[in-house]
Every structure is written in structure tokens, then in C-alpha cells.
């Protein structure tokens, strides 16, 4: 009789210990729910930049893309610049950029407004394709109204045919 009671007591003890163990196993998962997903980020070298990188990273510090006369296609030498800005923008979804398109002085002012916009749009497309969200990008054309120089020669004209990547304050 005493042995039966010992066995029952031992069984109850084991059962209660098992129950305790199970409760302990449940607790950790209840205390740490998974983080909410706000946006699916494309697969990039994500996390490579900090906010400061805009001022310190040599690629991100490049803010101007230049164009050939009457052209709005982006030359291959600017691919790296497109990529690093797109990477920054996709890493920081709250970052906003204004793409300011300009032309040289030749030809009519109004047509040049259109040409400046075409260049801004080309940079916008390239940044989107490389991972930036379209809601982060805004295109403004200034045509020939914002020259950086005034001489009437190609060395000046080439400096005016450009899109400037302008980060606005968050």
C-alpha cells in the first residue's frame, strides 16, 4: 500500500513538473512578438549607410548628372551614382529627393523647360529601377533659368546640361 502511494505521488510530481516545464516554454514566445512589416525592401546591400553618409560617402556626395546636347539619356559613367543614391533611398524610405532638370541656353526657353523635365524624368526612372520608391522622387524642370555659368561656349554649356539630386529636409 505504501508503495502504491509512493508511485502515485511520484507520478503526480513528474506530471506537475512536466506541466511547469510546458508553461515555461510558452512564456518566451508570448513576450516577444515579431516586428510589424511596413514595407518590403528589395534585396540590396541594405544597412550599408547611415544618415550621415549623405555628407561622408564619396558616391552619395555626387549630386549632379550631366548630359550631352539635346539628349536625355544617362551615360554609363553615372550608373554608380544612380545605384548609390537608389540604395540610400531604399534604405531610408522617408528620404525625399527633388530632381532638378536644366539645359544650356541654346534654343527657346519654353522648349528647354520640356527638355529639362525629360532629363529629370530619365533620372527618376533610373533611380526607380534601381530601388527607390516613386513617392520619394519629384521632378522639377528649370529649363535654362538656372545657369551655373554664362559663357557662350561648350565648356559652359556642358556644365548647364544637368540634373541635380536635391535631398529635402525630412
Amino acid at each position, binding site marked *: 500500500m505504501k508503495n502504491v502511494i509512493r508511485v502515485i505521488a511520484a507520478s503526480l510530481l513528474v506530471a506537475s513538473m512536466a506541466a511547469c516545464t510546458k508553461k515555461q516554454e510558452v512564456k518566451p514566445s508570448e513576450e516577444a512578438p515579431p516586428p510589424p512589416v511596413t514595407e518590403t525592401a528589395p534585396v540590396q546591400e541594405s544597412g550599408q549607410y547611415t544618415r550621415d553618409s549623405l555628407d561622408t560617402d564619396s558616391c552619395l556626395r555626387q549630386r549632379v548628372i550631366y548630359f550631352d546636347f*539635346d539628349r536625355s539619356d544617362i551615360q554609363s559613367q553615372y550608373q554608380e551614382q544612380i545605384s548609390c543614391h537608389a540604395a540610400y533611398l531604399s534604405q531610408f524610405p522617408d528620404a525625399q529627393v527633388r530632381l532638378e532638370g536644366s539645359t544650356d*541656353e*541654346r*534654343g*527657346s*526657353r*519654353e*522648349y528647354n*523647360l*520640356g*527638355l529639362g*523635365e*525629360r532629363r529629370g524624368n530619365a533620372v527618376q526612372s533610373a533611380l526607380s529601377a534601381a530601388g527607390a520608391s516613386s513617392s520619394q522622387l519629384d*521632378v*522639377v*524642370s*528649370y529649363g535654362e*533659368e*538656372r*545657369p*551655373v555659368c*554664362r*559663357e*557662350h561656349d561648350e565648356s559652359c554649356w556642358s556644365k548647364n546640361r544637368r540634373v541635380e539630386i536635391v535631398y529635402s529636409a525630412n
Partner: protein
Amino acid sequence: MLTTMRTALLGLATLLFAQVAAAQGLSIDIVNGNPTAIPIAVVPFAFEGSGVPPGTDIGQVVRADLARSGQFRTLPKENVVEFPTREAEVKFATWRLLKQDYLVVGRVGDAGNGALRAEFELFDVARQQRMAGLAISGQPSALRDVAHQIADLVYEKILGVRGAFWTRIAYVTAVGVSPNIQYALMVADSDGYDPQVIVRSREALLSPAWSPDGRKLAYVSFERGNSSIYVQDLATGSRQLLSSNRGINSAPAFSPDGTRLALTLSKGGNPDIYVMPASGGNQNRIVQHFSIDTEPVWAPDGRSLFFTSDRGGKPQIYSVPASGGDASRVTFQGQYNARPTVVDAKGVKLAMVQGNGNVYRIAILDRATNQYTLVSPGNQDESPSFAPNGSMLLYAASEGSRGVLFAVSADGRVRQRLVLAEGDVREPAWGPFRQR
């Protein structure tokens, strides 16, 4: 004795007047000349009023207007040796000796209530006949307007074409260096006098466009950060924001009856031509194409528009019905044709900016003969705008790093430079005939 004194006084008045003109910072240099110009003598107008002589030398304003048109060779003031003020005092032999075809004489007297009355007479020297005579009254402060109206009448009587001296011009000035450029949209008399500031801005202003009644200017402003179109009443200064969509809002143009505005919008993805009510309202797209379509101008009958499009690769001029439809190409000569403007009342002649290589010049196309005439020398000439009688045009050019305006006769023979005292001048727009 009296005549000598009067001559001396007139000489003094002229000298003072010239100094005032210089102080305004206005410089008009005649660059070329017209060998077939009509010789005409304008005798200084006598002052016969009781008070102080007016500051305006009417004869000089008339003389300068006629000379600027390129159609007349005016006798220099110093070669005027007789001073008739009315028909009875005219000795035709004198003017025949001086080889003048026409003679203008006049006088200014009191009209009551502080106003002055200017009377003029126009004579055909060979026929020894009076062709015209009229009296026009105005306040002393408005005597330049009176002088321009006299010049218009003389012009019309001799040439059979309405004069356009009594008109105004709009233009944009830019003073300073980026990023501290101060822009202003200005309106002045068509000889550059009496400039008034219409708008001041730290952001670019461009494309001023007159309403047909001369009361309003539409223009493009970047003050909102993006190109937007405003229409402003010149008398009151009040203005309305007509278009501020995403993208480009530019190239406004009033229809000939003033009820509609053509404009360029890129809200649809690329610059297209739209038409909307001039007082605001729905914007209807009438040209839709993936190319850049811009710079619409109305044909004089209001039923079609000319515009610039690069759908063929480079900018050329096209035509489209104002209600929409197929666009047809108008220019087939020159690598680059843009910024069309209508020259004549029938819409047969179009002026434009024509580019070949790096040289941009103003060209006039006669659509009846398909002939192009180049009327400016280049290299960065732009923004042609015609006087309402089609006889002269304004355009913008570069001199060194500075923008200046030129006025040219429609045949390109006579060119004058208008220079402001400081800054860069661009975007001229010649206003319509004025109403009394």
C-alpha cells in the same frame, strides 16, 4: 532777334532733354540703315501755351519713332533751319532744297484744366499740299502718348498701314548673380520709356503674354517652386493663379478674342498643348503626343494653333485645329525651328527661332511662297515678338554675358538696340494697339 532767342531756347531744351534720356539708362543705337527710307523733316513743335513748357519734346518723340521704324530717314534736328508752326508759315522751296519728301510741323497750346493741346500738320513737299492735320489733347504727363499717336497718324497717312508707336512692351529683367538674382516683369512704352514694375520675384519669371485688350498679362512664375501660370490685371495689380499642376505649366497665349488661353502642361506625363477658359476652368488637352509639344500661338482667326514639337526628332513648327485633331508640320527648312509667332493679320507669315549648328537667328517664313528670311544675325537670338501692325519685331539677344533687346524692321534692314541701365533683359512681348 526773337527767332535767334527762340532757337537758343529750343537748343537748350533739347540739351536738357537729351540728358534726361541718358539718365533713364535708355540707349537706342541704330545699327543698320535702309537706303530706300523716305526722307521726312519734323520741325520742333512750338510751345504757345501760357504756363511752363512741357518736359516732353513732342517733335523729338515723333522723329525718333519714325526713324526707329526703318521706313523713314528723318532730317537731323540740327539741319532744321526754318521753324514753321502752321501751313501759312511753310516755305516749300526750303524743304525741296533739303530733299525732304514730307514735312511735319506743330505747336502745343493750352486746352484748359491744365491739359495741353498738340496740333500737327503733315505736308507733301513735292505737291506742296497739306495731307493731314489734327489736334490731340492730353495732360502734360501724357504728352509722350500724344506724340506717339501723332507719329502713328503720320505713318498711316504716308504708308497706308496703321502705325504701332503708341503701344507698350513687356519684358523680363534679371539683376544679380545666382543664387541672388532679382527678377522683374516690366511694362514700358514701345520706345523703352517709362518702365513700370509689374512683378518682382526671387525666382524666374518668363513668357509674358498680352491679353488682346492690353489690360492683362499672363506669365510663368517659379515662385511656388515649380512653373505656374498667373494672369495679372495691369491697372489694379490683382492677379489670379490660373494653372499650377504637377510638372510644367507654361507658355500661356490668349486667343484673339481674349476668351481662351492656350498653354503647355506636362501633367499628363510629357508637355502637351491644352486650351482653357481665360478666366479659369477646365483644361482640355488638344495635342497629345509623347514628344515635347509647347509654345502654342493662335492663328488670327482663332481656329487653329501653331506650336513647337520635337516629334520629328528636333523641334519644328506644327499646326493643329484649336478644337484638336491631327497636327501638320509647317517648317521643313533648318535643323531647328521653335517659338512661332504670327506676323500678319492673315497668319500667312510666321516668325520663329531658327537654329543651324550653334547659331540661333530669327527667321520669318512666308507660308504662301515657302520663303524664309533671316532678320537677325545671331548667335543666341530668341523670343521674337511682332508689333501689332507687323512692321517691326522685338527679340532678345546676348551681348557678352548680358541679355539685351533689339527692335528690327520686318525686312531686317534697320535694327536698334534697347539697353537698360543694369541687368539682363529677355522675353519681350509687344502689346496690342492702344485705345483712347
